[in-house]
């Protein structure tokens, strides 16, 4: 100690003092000025900020049967560096997944730190893989939209894409209702990735999507699809569509299009099969439109059901001669018989008496040329040219459904007006949806009156006669009164002519006719059977009507 001079001691003391001051200043700096930054970094290590996904709502039929639901399925991933024996793991997984082992091994040796092996596995498969306990494999849960009835009502339901966005049908139209709103969770986590109960926790709960109930009835839909598929295959038709609605309020009970697709396997679907022909297929409807012409004639008083004209097998109008089917002359024919025999000359007779203005007004009053307003994505307008663009002959051709286009749903709505006493109703497919605020019901909407109740009643009788005594006898249902009309239309070619030997066959009708509860429209494109597919269309209508009446437990109104 004696060797250390006072100066040295002072220097050492001063050095320590300076160091202490520097350290203290640094501590003060970290505790005050840079405190926020340090806390942020510490928080970043333990706090996780995550999205709580909202569950997409379930879609049910009118009886509560599930048509679409979202469930979390397990997706298999691998951390390749932790997989000890990669070829053996690939072989085991290949067997369990029912896949070739080579692409699995390729993924395991791709050099990625973290790779998906297969996403959204069936539950049994993921359980089998979990039991094998291969090191380096794990599962995460991912939502998947499932359709337990497979392709049933595919067009009405639509589908959900990989981003979770609904497209087409109900999934598309009601996407915001079904999707809900994601929540967020900010929470501190321990090293085992468990949230710390006494730590920071800020949560905004997700608002799950609403559960939607459709007007579609699973049983009627199944019958409609089975019969439509059989008709298309039997007649080797290019496509077909069917619509069944309740004429009293416009509720759609069944709606199908064929060819169809599986909404859960959209990647493999043929794009042509995804077109909803029931609402997005405008075609020339043909003789089913004679009902609209006759409705206008009776409503304006230019004809009555018993008005008679001399049928010569043709009618001249606008300098053109329009023929009956097969050129057949019927002689003296009442208006009721015009519908029974589907006489083009009779429709032209009424059209000529009406004139273009009243006929055009009637066609529009029945809803042709404008969307029905159905709550489904992708509805087509159909085409009814403005009256100013009509040639004189168009009064005749429009009277039996040529020169204008309609979708099957528009036809169903027009026939529903005749069935319900003359009122056009807005068709709808969603009956209600239920969310946190309670139940929201769709109110049936009457759009306008197309014809008086008296005219509608007269037409119902005429259409019942068409089935009982006319060409539409193939649509008879034992024990029940049925009203309806056939329609066979040629297909226009791009050059404005009609294609030879290609037709679109339609049957539109209602049952039971005394108090119509159902309206059904069946359309077949390019059927290859005799009589242009009308027999098939009628037998399809009859089969669907029988199933529907039986299921609805409606009492027969006639002796079989």
């Amino acid at each position, binding site marked *: 100690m004696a060797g250390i001079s006072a100066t040295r001691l002072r220097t050492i003391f001063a050095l320590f003092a300076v160091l202490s001051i520097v350290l203290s200043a640094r501590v003060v700096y970290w505790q005050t000025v840079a405190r926020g930054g340090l806390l942020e970094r510490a928080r970043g290590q333990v706090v996780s900020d995550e999205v709580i996904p909202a569950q997409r709502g379930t879609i049910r039929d009118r009886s509560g*049967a*599930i048509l679409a*639901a979202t*469930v*979390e399925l397990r997706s298999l991933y691998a951390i390749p560096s932790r997989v000890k024996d990669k070829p053996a793991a690939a072989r085991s997984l290949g067997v369990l997944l029912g896949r070739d082992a080579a692409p699995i091994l390729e993924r395991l040796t791709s050099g990625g730190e973290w790779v998906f092996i297969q996403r959204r596995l069936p*539950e049994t498969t993921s359980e089998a893989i979990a039991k094998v306990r291969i090191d380096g494999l794990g599962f995460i*849960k991912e939502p998947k939209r*499932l359709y*337990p*009835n*497979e392709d*049933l009502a595919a067009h009405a339901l639509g589908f959900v894409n990989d981003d979770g966005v609904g497209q087409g049908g109900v999934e598309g139209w009601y996407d915001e209702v079904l999707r809900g709103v994601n929540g967020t969770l900010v929470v501190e986590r321990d090293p085992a990735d*468990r*949230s*710390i*109960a*006494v730590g920071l926790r800020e949560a905004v709960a997700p608002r799950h999507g609403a559960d939607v109930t459709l007007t579609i009835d*699973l*049983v009627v839909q*199944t*019958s409609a*699809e*089975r019969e439509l598929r059989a008709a298309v295959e039997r007649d080797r038709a290019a496509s077909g569509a069917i619509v069944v609605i309740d004429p009293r309020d416009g509720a759609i009970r069944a709606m199908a299009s064929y060819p169809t697709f599986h909404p859960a396997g959209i990647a493999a679907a043929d794009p042509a099969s995804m077109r909803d022909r029931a609402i997005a297929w405008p075609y020339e409807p043909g003789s089913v439109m004679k009902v609209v012409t006759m409705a206008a004639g009776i409503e304006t008083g230019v004809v009555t059901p018993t008005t008679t004209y001399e049928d010569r097998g043709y009618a001249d109008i606008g300098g053109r001669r329009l023929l009956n089917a097969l050129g057949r002359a019927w002689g003296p024919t009442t208006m009721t018989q015009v519908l029974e025999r589907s006489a083009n000359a009779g429709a032209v007779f009424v059209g000529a008496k009406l004139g273009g203005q009243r006929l055009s007004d009637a066609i529009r009053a029945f809803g042709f040329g404008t969307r029905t307003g159905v709550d489904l994505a992708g509805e087509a307008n159909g085409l009814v040219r403005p009256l100013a663009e009509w040639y004189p002959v168009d009064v005749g051709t429009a009277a039996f459904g040529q020169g204008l286009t309609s979708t099957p749903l528009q036809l169903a709505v027009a026939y529903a007006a005749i069935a319900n006493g003359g009122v056009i109703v807005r068709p709808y497919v969603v009956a209600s949806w239920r969310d946190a605020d309670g139940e929201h019901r769709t109110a049936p909407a009457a759009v306008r009156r197309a014809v008086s109740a008296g005219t509608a009643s007269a037409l119902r009788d005429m259409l019942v006669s068409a089935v009982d005594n006319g060409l539409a006898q193939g649509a008879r249902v*034992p*024990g029940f009164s049925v009203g309806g009309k056939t329609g066979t239309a040629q297909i226009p070619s791009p050059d404005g002519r009609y294609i030879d030997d290609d037709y679109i066959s339609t049957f539109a009708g209602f049952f039971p006719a005394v108090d119509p509860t159902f309206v059904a429209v069946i359309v077949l494109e390019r059927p290859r059977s005799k009589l242009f597919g009308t027999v098939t269309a009628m037998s399809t209508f009859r089969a669907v009507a*029988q199933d529907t009446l*039986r299921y609805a437990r409606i*009492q*027969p109104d006639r002796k*079989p």
Partner: protein
Amino acid sequence: MRAATWEMRSFLGASAAIAVAFVLALAYLASSTGVATAGYEAQRLQATRDELRRRNTLLELELAKLDAPARIDSEAKRLGLVRVPFIPVVQAEPLTARK
């Protein structure tokens, strides 16, 4: 004697204060541990609940598949059953009139 009493009192006072502080610290620790344990338990129960809900949805979907009219139709066909072309319905009115 007085000094001893004062010292004793001080000692006892300090000991009591230390003991109370110790007990309070223990109680706080026990309570914190209890909350943390309950938090982990709540999380485990939440995970169990979510898994049960998921399995329930899967079972509901399975049930919907089995209940599908198309499946029942094909099963009936497989068993050799055929559709009845017409179901006779007994009218209620004549029966009532007969009675």
